[in-house]
């Protein structure tokens, strides 16, 4: 029997977000909806990372007065996976900005946001 821990719940949430995100990016046709699906995907990655850094009964990796260094070492959340989340947020922001800017410009040119119309295959 699988023991249900907070970490496992986090993983399941991450996996669901990821699958919903990929499904949205593939099956939805509106470019803006696709971008929203990407933000779901990116949040799924964030939750996955936070859950990997989770420690049962742990503390935030910030030293507070009165702590012991040995205890801190064993109980603080894993700082590496938690720190990567910051990077992923920044990357998500930049990618979203670029995608939205491109969507705006293509909308001005074609007057629609349907990927099957704007981004259809064409011969050169």
């Amino acid at each position, binding site marked *: 029997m699988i*023991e249900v821990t907070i970490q496992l719940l986090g993983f399941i949430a991450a996996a669901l977000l990821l*699958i919903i995100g990929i499904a949205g990016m593939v099956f939805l046709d509106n470019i803006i909806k696709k971008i929203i699906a990407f933000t779901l995907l990116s949040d799924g990655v964030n939750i996955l990372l936070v859950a990997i*850094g989770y420690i049962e009964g742990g503390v935030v990796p910030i030293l507070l007065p009165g702590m012991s260094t040995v205890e801190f070492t064993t109980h603080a959340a894993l700082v*590496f996976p938690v720190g990567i989340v910051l*990077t992923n947020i920044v990357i998500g922001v930049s990618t979203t900005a670029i995608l939205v800017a491109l969507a*705006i410009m293509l909308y*001005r040119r074609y007057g629609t946001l349907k990927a099957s119309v704007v981004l259809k295959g064409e011969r050169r």
Partner: protein
Amino acid sequence: MNELRGKRGILAVIALLIIGIGFLSSLFELAGNVRPGVSQIYNSLAHLVAPNNIATWVYDWRGYDTLLETAVIYVGAVVSAMVIGRGVVQMKSCPQEPPAQSKPLEFHIETLTVILKYLGLPAAILLFSYGIMVVTASSTSGGGGFQCGVIMTAAYLLAAIFYGKNNPIRFGKRFIIGIGAAGLGGYTLLGLPGFLTTGFWQYNIGADVWGIAPSIMRFIFGEPFRLSLVLKEGVFFSSPGIIPLINVAEAFNVIGAIGLIYFAFIYGWQEE
């Protein structure tokens, strides 16, 4: 959207299910079996640098990564502005189709309620000062550069929404780009002192955990931010070193970058 209807759609759903099942089954194995690895070493050395170990991780243990991460948002801003029309280039010998014109957004500020109209400016100013507080209050521990930038640009956006294009907090384009360049350039150049004195780029000479920086540099960068940490084992004298400076540079960069994104989206881009 004919590509994903019918048989193709069913196949795509099956493919998605395979991916999902594989991913979930792997995560069931991972739960509870995560190896701490290098994170524990980082945590065990936290008291020597700064109390906020996430900030230490971001700016000291992984300082160069964070430089590139900072560059990511800079690139994001420059590219978004480029899409809108800033810096579009054509071959002189063979001009192609004219680049798309980007019109400024239209604001309808007449419909705002009186409360919003009169509380908007104080709110924006409050946000602005809050941003400054976030980046300066963290001087002893680092952290908050990105947050400060986001808060300040939020104030900028708020002002634009409430007061239209001629809002009180209107940055010029040169100013925004200059701030961004100063931020990222400052962050990059903060690697130089460590490089010149110890040979390691972005060596945190102020904190100097390993004692390889010359004492003069340690004095210049370390002493102003020295702090004492009262822990169970005793009092540790730790120092974040150049982390607060990097933090300020990061804040400048983020203000410049997100400001440029907002600017380009709101005002469009016209060459003078």
